[in-house]
């Protein structure tokens, strides 16, 4: 148990070594060297753990324990270039580091004092001039509010969080504000739910706060991030778990709840571990538990692991799951704020929403609401993926255009290919075509162009992606993740998927487009929960913006992007074929005939389009059309 005074002392003691990682100017004054090694899921699966072992050994051997400290951080953002290693002072950013490089970095940079230019992020060296990595194109235009501590502090050390004003928001709320003032601040800040729908967070809290008193209430955190390609929440939990814990305690105080639940995917083992450590430390410090800061307010948090069901990201399903049931959504009303977890009033927000709260309380509503657009305040974190150079995690102010995110921060589409569309909102969202490249991103604008904010997955697609195939992929996902409770979603999505399969198999008819649209609109209007209601979005948005691709599949029996196997033909160019027979020998279907040293021919009726012939042709005589 720590008093406010003790927390202040911890902050003062730790502040210097933490601040140099945020402020390059202060860095010069540092006496010690700090090596930050990314310990997010991406870098960890690229063996960043081994880098730490190796570095520890090197430091040990050199007897530099007192001069060099290694800190395992959460995600740095630039996952494409992992594993990532940052050295302070100096703000030196090494990318794609392996074991062999570590030794050289240690010897030449840590000991020798000279950064190794060839290992740096390319942009760090401009015209021979070294610039700090935070000034690079990837980081420069980002505004990190929710991710403010991610990748910079040790998530397993509560002291580092405290050094970054940690738990000061909670202290301010408990000591200086009434619950209603807390809610008013969140309301005024304009913070909206980052999980997808964008409901004003303060309003949610206000509804749940009604009838204070002896009523049991709960605060819950949705960390069941299930969109394929989205990992914002995971990164926050891995990089800055205390920000979520602090926010939940603030929410508990605001609505009058004493118990919180974090529902986190079991597929996020690192996040789960760091949460467990953070909860333990928070209890030890008394920022969770009885009588927090002597205010009389009690609050604690339990961790619940999801078990692999996307639908549990839907709020009513999530709560049903915590209660120990099949994660099936139920109709609203009653809303969770009235009747939620265990039938008690419940506030449920997602991880990124919570991560914004402590700073809003500490710095005030105005501080937050000056970022963003008229209706969407603050920032949004996106998981940038697909056909883009800098895949990774980015946080930008609301209102940033797609072009800025993809071209500037993301470094554009690789291999000189054309940008075709960006998919946002995952299985509930849609595809934004190149025409809308310059639309400022916020909740409303994305909806207008047939997509949605969603939780923040942003998948870049290029000319090699087939939009019918993309639609089929997302629908296949929702179909297999449907809970099976209501008719439209259980059977409707299955029937839509069957029609899409028919089209990509070359059996489509033009009437199928009407049937698809018809069913899509029916499911949107009739499904029980948000998962079902939004399941048709990827189809509707691709049909709207890329209808010609659908028509090409149906009428011309062609896949313009060359993705849908059933619509492709492998053809041997008789000019180039030397008659080596290798293709015929490798064809699993026996579809290729020809005599030695004579051009061979593929029997299209037998061909199963596996591509083995093309792979094996030494003369590039086989093409796919």
């Amino acid at each position, binding site marked *: 148990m720590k008093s406010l005074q003790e927390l202040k002392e911890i902050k003062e003691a730790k502040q210097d070594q933490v601040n140099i990682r945020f402020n390059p100017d202060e860095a010069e004054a540092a006496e010690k060297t700090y090596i930050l090694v990314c310990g997010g899921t991406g870098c960890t699966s690229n063996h960043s753990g081994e880098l730490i072992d190796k570095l520890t050994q090197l430091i040990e051997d050199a007897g530099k324990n007192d001069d060099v400290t290694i800190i395992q951080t959460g995600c740095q953002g630039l996952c494409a270039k992992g594993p990532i290693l940052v050295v302070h002072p100096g703000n030196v950013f090494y990318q794609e580091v392996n074991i062999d490089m570590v030794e050289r970095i240690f010897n030449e940079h840590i000991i020798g004092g000279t950064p190794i230019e060839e290992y740096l992020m390319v942009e760090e060296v401009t015209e021979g001039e070294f610039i700090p990595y935070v000034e690079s194109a990837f980081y420069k235009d980002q505004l990190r509010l929710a991710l403010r501590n991610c990748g910079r502090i040790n998530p397993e050390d509560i002291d580092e969080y405290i050094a970054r004003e940690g738990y000061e928001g909670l202290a301010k709320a408990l000591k200086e504000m009434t619950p209603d003032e807390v809610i008013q601040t969140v309301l005024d800040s304009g913070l909206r739910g980052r999980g997808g729908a964008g409901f004003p967070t303060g309003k949610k809290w206000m509804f749940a706060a009604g009838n204070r008193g002896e009523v049991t209430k709960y605060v819950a955190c949705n960390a069941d991030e299930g969109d394929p390609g989205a990992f914002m929440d995971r990164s926050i939990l891995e990089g800055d778990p205390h920000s979520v814990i602090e926010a939940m305690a603030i929410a508990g105080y605001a609505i009058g709840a004493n118990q919180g639940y974090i529902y986190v995917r079991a597929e996020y083992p690192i996040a789960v571990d760091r949460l467990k450590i953070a909860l333990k430390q928070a209890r030890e410090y008394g920022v969770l538990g009885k009588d927090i800061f002597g205010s009389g307010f009690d609050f604690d948090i339990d961790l*619940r692991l999801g078990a692999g*069901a996307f639908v549990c990201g839907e709020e009513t399903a999530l709560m049903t799951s915590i209660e*120990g049931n099949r994660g099936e959504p139920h109709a609203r009303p009653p809303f969770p704020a009235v009747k939620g977890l265990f039938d008690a009033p419940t506030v449920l927000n997602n991880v990124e929403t919570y991560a914004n709260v402590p700073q809003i309380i500490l710095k005030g509503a105005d501080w937050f609401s000056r970022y963003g657009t008229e209706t969407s305040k603050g920032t949004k974190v996106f998981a940038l993926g697909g056909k883009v150079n800098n895949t990774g995690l980015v946080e930008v102010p609301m209102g940033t255009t797609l072009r800025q995110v993809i071209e500037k921060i993301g470094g554009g589409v690789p291999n000189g290919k054309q940008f075709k569309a960006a998919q946002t909102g995952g299985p509930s969202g849609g595809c934004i075509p190149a025409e809308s490249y310059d639309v400022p991103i916020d909740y409303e604008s994305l909806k207008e162009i047939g997509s949605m904010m969603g939780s923040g997955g942003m998948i870049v697609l290029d000319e090699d992606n087939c939009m019918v195939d993309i639609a089929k992929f997302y629908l296949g996902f929702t179909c297999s993740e449907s809970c099976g409770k209501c008719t439209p979603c259980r059977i409707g999505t299955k029937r839509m998927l069957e029609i899409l399969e028919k089209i990509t198999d070359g059996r489509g008819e033009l009437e199928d487009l009407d049937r698809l649209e018809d069913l899509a609109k029916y499911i949107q209007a009739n499904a029980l929960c948000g998962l079902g209601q939004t399941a048709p979005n990827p189809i509707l948005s691709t049909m709207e913006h890329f209808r010609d691709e659908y028509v090409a599949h149906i009428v011309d029996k062609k896949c313009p992007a060359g993705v849908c196997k059933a619509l492709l033909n492998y053809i041997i160019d008789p000019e180039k074929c030397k008659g080596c027979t290798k293709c015929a020998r490798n064809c*699993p279907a026996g579809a290729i005939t020809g005599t030695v040293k004579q051009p061979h021919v593929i029997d299209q009726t037998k061909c199963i389009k*596996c591509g083995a012939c093309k792979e094996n042709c030494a003369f590039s005589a086989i093409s796919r059309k």
Partner: protein
Amino acid sequence: MKVSNVPFKGTKEQEAKLLEVIAQYKDQKGALMPIMQEAQEIYGYLPYQVQKIISDQTGIPIEKIYGVATFYAQFSMSPKGKYVVSVCLGTACYVKGSGNVLEEVEKVLGISDGECTPDGKFSIETCRCVGACGLAPVMIVGGDVYGKMTPDMVAGILAKYE
């Protein structure tokens, strides 16, 4: 959901551990999922006998437990063998007779797709294209890839893993 017919080989120690877990959670609200998650940690899967213990101890109907178990992808009703035998049923392998290879594997091991041998050594899985169409049909045993398979090769290959 594949339900295993491998004889249940739970030990007294495992049962004691599970009972301890149940006792620890029993009075908590919504304890079923955490209990099931820990039970799967202990046994590796959730066969009838394990779900029965949970049901008997908590009073939760076993059908409800099974309903939960089949809802979430994380829960498994079937143990995995020491060596997973996968036979590719992608188009290329299929037209080259991988179906016959699978049949032979099932015959040699005496189990069906999705099941595990009674000694826990092998389990069979089917998979979609592994991208080795030139080698079709393909069989993978414990990570080792075998190409251009014929049914008569199966017994010999599996014997290497005895």
